[in-house]
């Protein structure tokens, strides 16, 4: 039980959520590569093996398909595995188990088999990581019906969303924005822990002129942008999606209908990225309220670059401001940005 005012890092909040879930529910298990004695390469599982024992928190052989595949079997047998993929790109070996089984088994069995599995994936860049350690792979999962895909932007939401994910009867891909692991914030009070709703987006900052749609690592960037934009006279509303799939049409469309303009931001490559879905949905639903096309500010359509170039790849405040500026404020012809 955590006090509302305590400041913790996102990694700490996740650790707390795992510990509380393990304590509350004896069917919860935590396993993966290096999650035991080491406490995970990001220390998210620090201390859990010592506290809950090797039966409940343990290292596995080094095999991601094996981790997800056995988690599926355990869930079929009544347990709630929370597994870690060490880095985003290292979840790919598990793609078949995730796509063909984890996502589909409930539907395939007409609801007889429930797979409450959480797959934690530290994702995204911004930490100077070398290749294969910085992928933003959300689009692969969000396009797969049957999966829930969530990602927190703040420590308190990290706690809340992870508790909600572990409690969920559906399999959840839990994307942890690794560049925000060390950012501090308050934990939710126990009473408020379920109050947002597992698949609801959240207006993080109210504004009248334009809606900035962000998630995970970009929530902080969006909020920073909103502050900067205020100086230029734009009142920016920031929506944190939280649940990428299912998508909270209601909250997002209410905002866009109000502002009439929107920009969606993510680190992943733009082409076929998650932002395309956001643009398409919002445009389908709010077309007549839009003063300008919904724009995307995303990573380039390239493999994730080496550390020395990543600053150019990742969306930052200036690039987002730039997109906002191109939202036809005086109804001139729309420019196409990074088309």
């Amino acid at each position: 039980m955590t006090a509302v005012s305590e400041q913790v890092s996102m990694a700490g909040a996740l650790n707390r959520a795992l510990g509380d879930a393990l304590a509350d529910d004896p069917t919860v298990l935590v396993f993966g590569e290096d999650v035991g004695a080491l406490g995970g390469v990001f220390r998210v599982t620090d201390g859990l093996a010592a506290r809950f024992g090797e039966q409940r928190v343990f290292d596995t052989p080094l095999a991601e398909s094996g981790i997800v595949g056995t988690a599926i079997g355990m869930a079929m047998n009544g347990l709630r595995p929370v597994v870690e993929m060490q880095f985003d790109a290292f979840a790919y070996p598990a793609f078949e188990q995730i796509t063909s089984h984890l996502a589909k088994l409930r539907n395939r069995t007409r609801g007889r088999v429930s797979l409450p599995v959480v797959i934690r994936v530290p994702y995204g860049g911004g930490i100077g990581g070398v290749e294969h350690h910085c992928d933003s792979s959300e689009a692969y999962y969000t396009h797969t019906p049957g999966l829930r895909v969530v990602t927190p932007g703040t420590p308190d939401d990290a706690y809340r969303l992870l508790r909600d994910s572990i409690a969920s009867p559906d399999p959840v891909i839990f994307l942890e924005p690794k560049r925000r692991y060390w950012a501090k914030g308050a934990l939710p009070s126990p009473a408020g822990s379920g109050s947002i709703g597992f698949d609801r987006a959240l207006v993080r900052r109210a504004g009248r002129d334009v809606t900035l749609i962000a998630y995970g690592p970009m929530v902080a960037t969006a909020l920073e942008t909103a502050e900067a934009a205020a100086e230029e006279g734009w009142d920016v509303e920031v929506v944190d999606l939280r649940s990428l799939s299912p998508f909270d049409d209601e909250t997002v469309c209410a905002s866009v209908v109000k502002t009439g303009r929107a920009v969606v931001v993510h680190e992943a490559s733009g082409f076929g990225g998650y932002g395309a879905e956001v643009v398409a949905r919002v445009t389908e639903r709010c077309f007549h309220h839009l003063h300008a096309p919904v724009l995307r500010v995303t990573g380039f359509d390239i493999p994730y670059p080496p550390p020395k170039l990543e600053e150019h790849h990742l969306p930052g405040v200036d690039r987002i401001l730039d997109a906002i500026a191109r939202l036809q404020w005086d109804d001139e012809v729309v420019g196409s940005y990074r088309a």
Partner: protein
Amino acid sequence: MARTRAPERTLLPGDEPLSLLRKDGTPVDDSPLSMPDDDVLVELHRRMVVGRRFDTQATALTKQGRLAVYPSSRGQEACEVGAVLALRPTDWLFPTYRDSVALVTRGVDPAETLTLLQGGWHLGYDPYEHRVGPQCTPLATNTLHAVGFAHAARLKGEDTAALVMLGDGATSEGDTHEALNFAGVWRAPVVFLVQNNGYAISVPMSKQNAAPSLAHKGIGYGVPSVLVDGNDVAAVHAVVREALESGGPTLIEALTYRIEAHTNADDATRYRTSDEVAAWLDRDPVDRLEAYLTSRGLLDNARRAAVAAEAEEFAASVRAKLNVDVVPSPDELFEHVYATTPRHLREQAAALREELA
């Protein structure tokens, strides 16, 4: 470096497959296996005959368009039936698409068994009712489910072993190896039954694997391994039972043969000779057991006729059930994608309903 050193002796299979009955049904003299009890043998026979009739019935139903596709296990009855009857009530079975005979032997309703292949839904039965996992199409993926399931049982303090079936081809997939490795490290109570039926669709063993036998894989994971004559139902039953009771993992390779083509849609003449098929027909698992039972006075013409009649009756019931055209409601498309149907799927369901109105 800590290293679990299991004794090698138990990890390597023998040079020759274990067996209890020779091709002609005479008993093997010095088999290390013990012959199942008479009543078990009689039951194995009954189930093999019924299973085979079910199998030919299913193949016939594809010709009438009642099944979308059917992968026959004709010739593999000793594995399908011998292994399943070795399961204890609390054990679980993790079958593949080819193991429909195993399913009906386990007691799954034949119509529910065939729901997948009929095209009605992806699965027709409740896995928890008969402790049978969903028939698995993505090759080798079920091996990991079995290991996880068995390990969970151990963690929960339950005496449940998992029996997972796979083919010779499926042993080449990475998942098989990850599963054997997890099972070895966890000492999980899982039996991997590889039905080596000679082919993965058209690809023969010589192009699939260069090991002395597939059972030679076990030692690389510290998993005890057995090579068994897969057309000898007594032997299959004995080794699977022993493995299930061992409390740890076992890899069993059963040497058998797929008499029919891969499925009704396949043309096996493209890749194998009829002589080869004939040679295996000569090693028929049902004939073999019948010869033995007859010599032992456990099977006479009356019993034979009774079993045949039961098989016919069973086939008739399958025909009857399959001839009823059950088309699922389009509403079902949107159900059970998530535990609670989310708004976007409710909207899509509504749109489809409107379209069909």
